[in-house]
């Protein structure tokens, strides 16, 4: 039996369309910076390890590390708007999922704050720490960056399945919901890809002697994980739980994005084949394709969310209204 709790008996502060636009639009921007931050950290780690043998890579790693601290500040601040919007649009769903995974939900605060402090230590103490400690710092940061997305994913998955709310006991139990791990893999693969795109963008106009080498690395980071997404993406799609509403359009868009991804891979492949002097020219096309994919994903996710919840929300609204009326009656004629 699916629970139908009441919502807060206050109207929404803005039309649903406006709140949805804030939610989906800013969330995409937030996730863009998050993936660049997480993927960037993976890249720094690899470059730093290669830098143990080859000084040039150490230099590149240091350069990349500088982007992380900027991306992380922007990532956090951009997350606040969508958080506000999801609080109003999906009040019952979001708060319920938060409470049921509460021990881990609140851990986000110390974990991320700690990871950010360590990121600074890693960046500003470059060259001043023993190698093992410097690598240790980034490994700890990486572990945290890999775990926090899971906390968020468990929450947004749990919030869409009201029929499971009465069953889950704690975070790890909720982490076993269908779709969590495939989606997690899908997200974690997008991080190196996005970081790859970011370094192409950063080095494209540089007159650096490492320019071509770094751009090639960027494209490889983009291409490899994106090819893997042709397997992981459909898995994430297949494991989506069935919904009361129709998923037709959402699924069609997800499938459409596969075509765009294929196009992206082709262009990126072409870029890798170019001579050093010309590499990077295809960037606008690749980046454009990525933006299209992001928008399609964000849109389809939203449609899926609606398919999962619109009936339930109607039931919640009816129950809330009945409660409001009953309360008013009790108040006016005791």
């Amino acid at each position: 039996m699916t629970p139908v709790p009441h919502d807060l008996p206050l109207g929404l502060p803005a039309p649903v369309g406006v709140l949805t636009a804030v939610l989906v639009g800013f969330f995409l921007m937030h996730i863009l910076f998050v993936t660049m931050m997480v993927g960037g950290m993976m890249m720094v780690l690899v470059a730093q390890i290669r830098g143990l043998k080859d000084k040039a890579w150490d230099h590149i790693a240091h350069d990349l590390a500088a982007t992380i601290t900027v991306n992380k500040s922007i990532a956090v601040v951009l997350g606040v708007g969508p958080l506000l919007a999801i609080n109003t649009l999906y009040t019952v769903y979001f708060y319920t999922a938060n409470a049921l995974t509460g021990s881990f939900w609140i851990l986000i605060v110390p974990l991320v704050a700690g990871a950010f402090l360590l990121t600074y230590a890693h960046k500003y103490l470059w060259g001043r720490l023993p190698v093992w400690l410097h690598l240790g710092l980034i490994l700890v940061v990486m572990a945290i960056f890999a775990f926090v997305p899971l906390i968020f994913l468990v929450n947004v998955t749990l919030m869409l399945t009201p029929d499971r709310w009465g069953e889950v006991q704690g975070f790890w139990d909720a982490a076993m919901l269908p779709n969590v791990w495939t989606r997690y893999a899908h997200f974690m693969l997008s991080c190196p890809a996005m970081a790859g795109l970011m370094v192409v963008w950063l080095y494209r106009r540089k007159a650096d002697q490492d320019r071509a080498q770094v751009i090639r690395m960027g494209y490889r980071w983009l291409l490899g994980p994106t090819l893997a997404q042709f397997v992981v993406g459909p898995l994430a799609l297949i494991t989506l739980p069935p919904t009361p509403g129709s998923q037709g359009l959402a699924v069609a868009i997800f499938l459409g994005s596969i075509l765009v991804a294929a196009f992206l891979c082709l262009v990126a492949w072409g870029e890798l084949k170019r001579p050093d002097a010309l590499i990077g020219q295809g960037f606008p096309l690749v980046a454009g394709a990525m933006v299209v994919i992001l928008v399609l994903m964000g849109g389809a996710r939203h449609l899926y969310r609606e398919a999962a919840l619109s009936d339930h929300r109607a039931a919640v609204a009816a129950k809330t209204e009945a409660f409001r009326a009953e309360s008013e009656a009790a108040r006016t004629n005791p």
Partner: protein
Amino acid sequence: MDFPIYHLDLMGNRLLVAVIAILHVLINHGLAVGLIPLVAAMEWYGARKGDPRWDRLARRILFFAFLITTTVGALTGVGIWLSTSLVNPASIGSLIRVFFWGWFIEWLVFITEVVLILWYHLTWESWQGARKAAHIRLGFALAVFSWVTMAIIVSILGFMMDPGNWLTDHSLWSGFTNPIYLPQLAFRTALALCFAAMVALMLILFFTRRDDPFRYQAVRAVSVFALATGPFVVLAGWWYASVVPETMLANLATGLATMQFEEWQDRLFLGMIGAAALVMGVAQLGVWRPHWVPRLGLLVPLVAVMWLTGHFERVREFIRKPYVIGQYMYANGLRVEDYPLYQSKGLLPYATWTYPLSQAETAAIPAGASVTDVQAGKDVFMIACTRCHTANGVNAVRGHFQRMLGDDPWTPDKTMDTLAYMHEARPFMPPFPGSPAELAQVALYIQTLQSVTEPLAGAQSAGVKLREEAR
């Protein structure tokens, strides 16, 4: 009330929010709102005097502020949302619905603030010479934006204490026109500047060497700044403390509350004067004999200012009780206007979730009592009491009854009156929200609790069950 209830039994839910929120306020006031204008002023002064030592010092102080505000500062800010959405979702959810646009604008200002601090910090080296003037302007712009962020938030805090006209007109503007708004903003501004001066003095002593004459020049200058802020802390504090009772008396009309409050108010007053005196004393020393200012000794006024900030937040919390949003919602997350319904028909007919009795609880059910009643009592307890109390931790209900009744069995005939009139004896508790039958059931649960020493589990670990299925 219809969200699964997250509950921390040992530390208590309120402490979780308090720790995060107070940490955030300390960082925000001491390292952003107050410190950034000081940094920008130092940079400006150095440029005017052509003295690079000021520039270097300002830069190092900014670096420190930057490290903390963009990590712990930013995350505790988000943490206030995350923790309140766990601890009192009904309250934060309602506030967001009312203040969405206020927070949205605040968010835009905050984005600007983050971009500005990144920019200010990262361009310090490169914007030299002709661009120095622009860099200094950037610093002052950052100072303004930091203050504006605070100015918006304070309206929401004022609203939570006294919604005033909102109860009738439901508009954002009534938050700003709230009677506590300006005094609170003035007090926070003065406090932030004073606090930041203490932080800066401390940092100067760390960032300069003992044998460097510049150290004493800097200590003297910041001390003058601190001396200038002290009187404003007292003045604005007095203004704030003088408008608070009106608001509070509008909330509660009982003598007891006033007595309690006077105690807090006296303490706030004394603390304010004490902290200001300490700051002024140290600052005076810094002006007269800058090399006498001891590094560790500075901790005393610094801690005093931090205590004052913390105490101020506690008083603010306190005078809000029993409400979480003045006259609209009690701290238990129940709306005042729904009380007639709950008190006649009961809370549980409108509750979706049930919190199954643990093994220890089931084992402790008093002879003759029905499991169904004890279960109902626990559910009411979860809804009506756990937002402020724990079973066995901070502000524990078991502790209170132990103190009042000792080891005699806590039979309902002894506890029901306490529960029924608790809002009169302890005016910062809301009236009991449920029906008379539910009151008896809670009393039965409390009797069960007498021998249960394990912590009460919240939804985050024990999960919840659907009431209709459990029945």
